[in-house]
C-alpha cells in the first residue's frame, strides 16, 4: 500500500513537504510512510486509527493528545511500548498494536550518556511564541540562555497556525501566518551565540535541589538555572460524554498537528465541539485540508472566539449551533456518528432537540488550561522564576510574544543587566493583545454607492487587530476609537489596490468595484481554500458576512495577493444591490451535511469515561462523591482515577467538575499531589554508561 493514501497532497497554504518514503510494518502488514514523521501519523496516513485495546476493559485506543502527554497512542515499536506520537518513523520499524498490557522484552535500553548537570543564567522551558520572544531579548544582551522544547523545531503551536496573525503589524507580525513567524524567530534565535537551543528535549521535573531535569536526545541532564522562565503553554481541556474516548474523538490541537504539521488527511467528515478560537480555527483548517465540516456546536449563546473566525466558517457553509452541546459519540471500534442537543440556560440538554450526523472525527475544543506546574514547583522550591504566555494566562500567540519580550527584559534586569528600559506602552500593548474580543456592534450597512471602487469592512467586533489600517498606502482606513481595538472605518478615496483585502487576518474586508460596470460590479473577496476549487465562470452561492445566502455570483478570475503568499483574491461578478454585502461563497453543499433523519439513541451521561488512562466513568466518581469522599487522593485509591500515565492532567478538571455538579464547595476538595515525572520516561534514560554515545 502506498503512503500517499491519506496524505494532503495539495494544501492552499502549506508547501508540499519533501518526503523520503520508508517501509515499515504494522501487525505484520507492509506499509510506507514519511521518514521522521510521528509513527502515529504514518498510521493515520494509512487510515489506521485504532492502535490497540485497553487492558482494563478492552476498549479501543487511539490518538488523543498528539503531544506526548497522554499514553493512548502507545504502540509496540520494535518490541518496546512507546508513545507513537513522539517516535519518529524509521526504515524497517516493526510496529504492533498494543492489546492489553505490553510484554517487556529482553532488549537493550536507550543508548545514552550518564546524567550531567549544567548551569545557565537563564533556562527557558518552552520554545513557543513567548519563550522565543524572551530568548531573543536575552540573546540580544548576550545572556547565556538555554531554550528547551520537546519538539524537533521551535515555534510551539505557531507551526500549526496557517492563518494570518491578528494584532498590530509593528509589534507582533500581524498579517503574517503563524508558521512563517515561527521560522523567522527560530532563524534569529539560532544565530544568537549566547542562546543554546535544546529541541527534542522533554522537561521531566523541577526539583527541590534547585535543578530542572531534562530528557535530552543523548541522556538525562539537570540544569541549574540562575533564572527560570516557564513558557510551557497550555493543554487542551476535555469534556466527558459517552463515547468520548473512541478513536476519532480528539482535541483540536491534536488535529492541527496531524493536518498542518504532518499533512495527514486524518478525516473525511468532522464535527467540532467548541466555538472558541481553537475550535473555529480547527474547523477552518479542516476545510483547508479538503474535509467536510458538518457542524460546530457551542454551549454558550454565542461563540467565544473572534467573530471574524466564526463568520469565516459560516460563509463557507459550516452550520454553527450555539446553545448546543455534544450528547454522545457513537461507534464500536471507531467513531461513527455524533449526537448533539440544544441546552437551556443551565446547560442542561433539552429533550427533543437531538440531532445526529455520521462523522468519522469529532474535534473537542472546549478551552485550554495553563501548563503551569513547573512554575508552581519553582516557587515552592525557591527557584527564581517567572511565567509567560499561556502558562500564565490563556491568550492569543501575539499576546504571548509580547508578554515573552517583557519577561525576557525583566529577567535581564533581575540578573543585573543595566540600562534596561521597559516602556509602559509595552505592558499596555501586552494587555490589549490579551483581549479575548470586546464589544460587538450591530451590522453597519455599507455605503449605498453604485460607483467607483471602495473597500467594505465587515468587522464589527473590538479585537486587537489593525493591519487593514496600516496596510493602506493612502491611509484611508482608521478608527475614531482605540488604535488597535477600535472598529475600522473607511474614509473614502480608495484606489483599489486590494492590500486591505489581502492582509485582513479575519478575511473580513472586500473590495467593491463599479468602475467597469455599474450593472455587474466585481467584488474582490479573499480565499484560502485552494485555487483548484475555482473555475472561471463558475456560479457560486454568495453569502453575506455571517454566511446568510444572498444570491448567486460568478467567478471572474483570481490572483495570488502580492506579498501575502497564499491568499487568493477572487473576483466575483454580482448584482449591484448585493455587491457591498457580499463577503464570501459556500464551498460546502448543504445537502452533504444534513443530519440523519432520526437522532441516534444516547447512553446515560454517567457512562462517560472521565479518567481515560484507567477507564473510570463519571458515574463511579459521582457515586463516591455522593458517599462523602472529598479527597481526590482517596478517590484515586478507590477508583484508580488519576493513577494513569498522564498523571491526572486530563481528569483532574473533569473530576472537580463532578464535585461542582454535586454542589460540593471547592474549598472542601483536596486535590491530587503533583509529582514528577511530567512525561513517562524509560528507566534507561537515567542509567547511561560512560561508553554510551547518546541517541540522535
Amino acid at each position, binding site marked *: 500500500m502506498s503512503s500517499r493514501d491519506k496524505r494532503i497532497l495539495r494544501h492552499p497554504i502549506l508547501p508540499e513537504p519533501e518526503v523520503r518514503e520508508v517501509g515499515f510494518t504494522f501487525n505484520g502488514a507492509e506499509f510506507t510512510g514519511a521518514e521522521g514523521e510521528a509513527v502515529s501519523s504514518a498510521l493515520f496516513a494509512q487510515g489506521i486509527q485504532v492502535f490497540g485495546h485497553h487492558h482494563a476493559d478492552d476498549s479501543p485506543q487511539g490518538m488523543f493528545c498528539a503531544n506526548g502527554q497522554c499514553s493512548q497512542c502507545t504502540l509496540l515499536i520494535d518490541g518496546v*511500548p512507546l508513545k507513537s506520537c513522539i517516535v519518529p518513523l524509521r526504515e524497517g520499524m516493526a510496529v504492533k498494536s498494543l492489546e492489553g498490557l505490553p510484554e*517487556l522484552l529482553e532488549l537493550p535500553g536507550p543508548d545514552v550518556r550518564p546524567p550531567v548537570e549544567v548551569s545557565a543564567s537563564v533556562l527557558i522551558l518552552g520554545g513557543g511564541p513567548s519563550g522565543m520572544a524572551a530568548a531573543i531579548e536575552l540573546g540580544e544582551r548576550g545572556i547565556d540562555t538555554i531554550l528547551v522544547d520537546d519538539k524537533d523545531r521551535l515555534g510551539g503551536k505557531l507551526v500549526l497556525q496557517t492563518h494570518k496573525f491578528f494584532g498590530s503589524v509593528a509589534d507582533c507580525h500581524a498579517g503574517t501566518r503563524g508558521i512563517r513567524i515561527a521560522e523567522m524567530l527560530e532563524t534569529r534565535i539560532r544565530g544568537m551565540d549566547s542562546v543554546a537551543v535544546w529541541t527534542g528535549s522533554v522537561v521531566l521535573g523541577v526539583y*527541590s535541589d534547585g535543578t530542572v531535569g531534562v530528557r535530552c536526545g543523548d541522556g538525562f541532564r539537570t540544569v541549574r538555572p540562575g533564572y527560570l522562565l516557564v513558557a510551557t503553554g497550555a493543554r487542551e481541556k476535555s469534556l466527558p460524554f459517552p463515547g468520548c474516548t473512541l478513536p476519532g474523538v480528539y482535541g483540536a490541537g491534536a488535529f492541527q498537528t496531524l493536518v498542518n504539521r504532518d499533512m495527514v488527511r486524518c478525516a473525511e467528515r468532522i464535527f467540532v465541539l467548541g466555538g472558541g478560537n481553537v475550535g473555529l480555527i480547527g474547523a477552518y483548517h479542516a476545510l483547508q485540508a479538503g474535509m467536510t465540516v458538518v457542524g460546530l456546536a457551542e454551549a454558550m449563546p454565542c461563540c467565544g472566539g473572534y467573530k471574524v473566525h466564526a463568520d469565516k466558517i459560516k460563509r463557507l457553509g459550516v452550520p454553527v449551533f450555539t446553545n448546543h452541546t455534544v450528547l454522545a459519540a457513537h461507534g464500536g471500534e471507531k467513531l461513527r456518528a455524533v449526537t448533539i442537543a440544544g441546552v437551556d440556560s443551565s446547560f442542561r440538554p433539552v429533550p427533543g432537540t437531538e440531532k445526529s450526523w455520521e462523522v468519522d472525527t469529532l474535534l473537542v475544543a472546549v478551552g485550554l488550561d495553563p501548563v503551569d506546574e513547573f512554575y508552581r514547583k519553582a516557587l515552592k522550591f525557591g527557584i527564581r522564576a517567572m511565567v509567560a504566555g499561556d502558562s500564565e494566562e490563556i491568550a492569543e500567540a501575539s499576546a504571548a510574544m509580547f508578554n515573552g519580550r517583557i519577561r525576557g527584559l525583566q529577567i535581564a534586569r533581575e540578573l543585573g543587566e543595566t540600562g534596561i528600559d521597559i516602556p509602559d506602552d509595552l505592558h499596555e500593548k501586552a494587555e490589549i493583545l490579551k483581549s479575548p474580543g470586546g464589544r460587538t456592534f450591530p451590522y453597519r450597512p455599507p455605503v449605498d454607492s453604485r460607483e467607483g471602487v471602495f473597500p467594505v469592512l465587515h468587522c464589527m467586533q473590538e479585537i486587537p487587530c489593525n493591519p487593514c489600517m496600516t496596510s493602506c498606502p493612502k491611509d484611508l482606513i482608521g478608527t475614531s476609537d482605540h488604535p488597535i481595538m477600535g472598529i475600522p472605518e473607511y474614509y473614502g478615496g480608495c484606489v483599489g489596490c486590494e492590500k486591505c483585502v489581502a492582509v485582513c487576518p479575519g478575511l473580513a474586508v472586500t473590495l467593491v468595484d463599479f468602475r467597469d460596470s455599474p450593472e455587474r460590479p466585481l467584488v474582490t473577496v479573499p480565499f484560502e481554500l485552494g485555487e483548484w476549487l475555482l473555475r472561471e465562470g463558475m456560479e457560486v452561492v454568495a453569502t453575506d458576512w455571517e454566511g446568510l445566502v444572498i444570491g448567486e455570483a460568478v467567478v471572474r478570475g483570481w490572483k495570488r495577493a502580492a506579498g501575502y503568499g497564499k491568499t487568493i483574491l477572487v473576483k466575483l461578478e454580482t448584482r449591484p444591490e448585493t455587491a457591498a454585502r457580499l463577503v464570501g461563497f459556500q464551498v460546502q453543499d448543504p445537502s452533504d451535511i444534513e443530519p440523519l433523519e432520526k437522532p441516534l439513541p444516547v447512553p446515560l451521561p454517567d457512562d462517560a469515561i472521565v479518567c481515560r488512562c484507567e477507564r473510570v466513568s463519571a458515574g463511579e466518581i459521582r457515586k463516591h462523591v455522593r458517599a462523602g469522599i472529598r479527597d481526590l*487522593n482517596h478517590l484515586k485509591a478507590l477508583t484508580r482515577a488519576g493513577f494513569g500515565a498522564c498523571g491526572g492532567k486530563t481528569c483532574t478538571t473533569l473530576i472537580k467538575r463532578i464535585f461542582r455538579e454535586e454542589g460540593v464547595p471547592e474549598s472542601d476538595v483536596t486535590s491530587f499531589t503533583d509529582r514528577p515525572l511530567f512525561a513517562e520516561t524509560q*528507566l534507561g534514560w537515567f542509567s547511561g554508561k560512560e561508553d554510551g554515545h547518546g541517541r540522535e
Partner: protein
Amino acid sequence: MGGSNYDAVVIGAGSVGTPLAMNLAEKGLRVLCLDSNPSAGQGNNKCAIGGARATHSEPAKVILGLRSLEIFRSWEREHGDDIGWYQGGYTYVAYDGETMDLFRSNVPGQQQAGLDIRIIDAGEMMELVPGINPDGLLGGTWSPGDGSASPMTSCYAFCRRARGLSAEFRFRERVTGMEASGGRITRVMTDRESYGCGAVINCAGSFALEVGRMAGAELPVYPESHEAGVTEPVKRLFDPMVVDIRKAPGSANYYFYQHDTGQVVFCITPDPPVPGTDTDETSGFLPLVALRMTDLYPRLGNLKVRRTWRGIYPMSPDGSPILDRVGPDNHYVAVGMCGQGFMLGPGIGEVMARFITGQETGEDRQVLDELRLDRQFTSEEALK
C-alpha cells in the same frame, strides 16, 4: 470545651493508627482517631511502596509480619475490599560471599520464629526472577509467604471497617496538646476541639517525637527521607520483591517488585541517610536507582517510569518499632516504624489493642518486651 469522651483516642490515621482504631473498635471501645490530613493514609502510608514481609532478622518483627501477612491475605475474602494483595514472595539476592553468609546466618533464626524461608542458589534465583543479571549471581533467600498490597487501599479498607464498628475519624484536625491529672492524660486538645479520653495512643509516624512530648515522653524517633517510584504497567515479569542489600556509592539497599496492576514499584535507601521530613522530589533519585536496577535486571531499561515521590521513615535507633506504655498510665506508643508501618501495622494493631485492653497473650508479651522503649537499642536490624 465541649468535645465528647472516648475510651481511646488514636493520634494518626495512617498505617498503624487506622488498623489499631479498627481493632479497638472491635473490642467494643468508643474510639476516636485524629489526623491532620484530609483522609486516611495521607501521611506516609501512601508513600509506602506496598511490600509486606515477615522476612526480618528480629523475632518480634517476624511475628508481627506473619500476622500482618495473614490479615492482608485474607482481607478480601473476609471483608470484601480488594486491597491488591499479591503473594509474590520476597527474595534477597546475593552477588558476593559476604551477603550470602549473612543470609545463611539469619535463616535458622527466621525459620525458628515461624518464617517460611530458605536459601536458594543462582539457578533457582534465575527461575524465580527470569531475566535477572546472572553475572556473579550466587543465589539468595526465598520467602514465598511474603507479598505486596496497596497501602492506601488497605488503609481505606481498615478505615471503612473501623467506621462500620462505630470508630470515629476526624480529619484535617491537628492535635495541639494534652491535659494530664493524677498521672493520667485526661483530655486531648486539637486545633478545633478537645476530647476526654481513656487511653491515648501515639501513632503519629514522623511526628511521634512531637506528639510524645505533649504527653511528657521523649521518644527516640527521628525521621529520614526516602524516595520511591512507579512505572507503567506491563505483563508479569517476575513474582517476588527483589531486594539487593549491597552498598554502592550514594546508596545502601534498594528493592523493587511488580504490583498486581503490572507496575514495577521501587525504592532506594540513600547513604548517608537524609535526615528530616522533606518530601520534595530531588533530581538525584532516578539516576541513583536506575543505574542499580538496570544493572540487576537489564530489561527494566525500557520500562517507563511514571511517577516518583518521597516519603518519610520514622527511624528508631535500632531499626525496629517501639511498642509500649510510656509516662502517664494511659499513654501508649506505637512509633518508630522505620518505613515498615504498612507491613507491620495490621499485626501491631492487634497486639496493641490487646495490650490496651489487658488481654495480651504470651506471644504479645514477647513482642512487647522485645520492642519496649527502654530496651538497649544495641542490635541493628540486618534486613531493614
